[in-house]
């Protein structure tokens, strides 16, 4: 069962955390889709580490494609997880350069994990489709994503 913790993690209401017995989820908000995807990236790395501790010394260009917005969200975060797992990257800021017809192009800025400087709070194993939701609500975009820990 999901328990809505209702607390704010980011500055302003960008996202909040959903508590789950075995997993963890996020509810992300955005004025437009670009902001929604960017905030989802921030929320993702806020679960993993302390965003404040990430220096923006590296930039990666990311491209993902999907038939619909929900899949695009899962693939976007899945790509970030892959870069984190394989190259040890931690990202802090995201610029969404293109988002249309089920394709997304973005730049993510951050740095490679360094044991002395970074805290790792939680290991995310996978981004899931469980209860996935991306929708417009009262003129604002909202997404729900559950992670397998």
């Amino acid at each position, binding site marked *: 069962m999901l*328990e809505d*913790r209702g607390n704010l993690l980011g500055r302003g209401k960008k996202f909040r*955390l959903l*508590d*789950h*017995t*075995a997993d*963890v989820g996020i509810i992300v908000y955005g004025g437009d889709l670009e902001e929604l995807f960017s905030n989802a990236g921030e929320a993702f790395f806020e679960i*993993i580490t302390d965003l404040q501790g990430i220096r923006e010394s590296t930039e990666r260009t990311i491209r993902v494609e999907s038939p619909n917005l*929900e*899949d695009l969200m899962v693939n976007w975060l*899945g790509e970030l997880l*892959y870069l*984190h*797992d*394989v190259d*040890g990257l931690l990202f802090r800021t995201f610029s969404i350069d293109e988002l249309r017809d089920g394709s997304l192009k973005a730049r993510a800025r951050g740095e490679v*994990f360094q044991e002395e400087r970074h805290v*790792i*709070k*939680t*290991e995310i*194993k*996978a*981004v*899931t*489709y*469980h*209860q*996935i939701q991306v929708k417009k609500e009262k003129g604002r975009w909202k997404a729900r994503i559950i992670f*397998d*820990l």
Partner: protein
Amino acid sequence: MRSGLSRKDISGSIKELVGALFRNIPSGVGSRRKDFTLNREEGRKVFKKGARWAIENGYGFAVDLEHIEEKGAIEGADPGAVSERAVERGRSQLGTLGSGNHFVEVGYVAEVYDGKLADALRLNEGQVTVIVHTGSRGLGHQVCDDYIKVMLQAAAKYGIELPDRQLCCAPIGSDEGKRYWAAMACAANFAFANRQMITHWVRETFERVMGMGPKRLQLNLIYDVCHNIAKFEDHEVNGHRRRICVHRKGATRAFPPHHAEIPEDYRDIGQPVLIPGDMGRCSYVMVGTEKAFSETFGSTCHGAGRVMSRHQAKRVAKGRAIVRELEDKGIFVRSAGKATIAEEISDAYKDVTEVVNVVHNAGISRKVAKLVPMGVIKG
């Protein structure tokens, strides 16, 4: 693993042992090996050979294979079914513990419930034991990720209605199903190899810290069994013997005495089942039963299960010196991440004793012995 040591033999060295295990076994979030990474060619061998690959490369002994499910390699593994991405995620993670609920635990036999079964498993009160809990790491997650995408399309293709998209699937006999199987087997074999390497480092660490040779330590594998896996097995269904695919999720195999799939020295007692509890309580050794075979397709529980989310656990742990609390109970814990210890506190889990009593009383596995932790390394 059982050992030739008693609790008294290591009680003075446990802190040192835990520290050395922590140094010798890469653990924690994103733990990776700096000394070697797997290339595609070597990766293919790991996927096909599993624990045997590890043994051929000097990690442990051929005799270990006798006490590993499927002798350490599931058939049907096709490295071609594993994506480049999955290989990429696995390449520096072979021989790492990972984080979360993964652990290496040094403990001792605190109680024997059935002398005859314990004798057959060569377990006795006070004897030192070691449990290793880890799996296929990032490789397995990527295999899952990759095939969820395949299965989402397959479910639509085969007209399967999904209550939740994460539950996407395909018939096991379909092309998609067969290909997934071939990839899953690779991940399972990677996990067998991973555990075998860690088993080897546990032995090495004991040798160094205790200053004893392998003959004196006798750190022998009791059993290595998968959690969360699908297997083709023969079972009776509606009065007919059939070959079926049994998917054990949150469950583990518990085959009865005289089943052909279990090691010869355990034929009379049934397959050993290892039920880890949380780091502050205890774990259990059980054996599979005939009843499990007829009622639960030869399956039983695989652990205690959480009652608190990780965040709840952290809240409960806040302000408490968890490491100290455990030390007061005689349990030394080392963890790569401070958060892990808070997330893994006893309060966050069901009492494994109650869980084990349920499956024991239901007859789907039998209690043999209780193991109490002395030292734990967590990811």
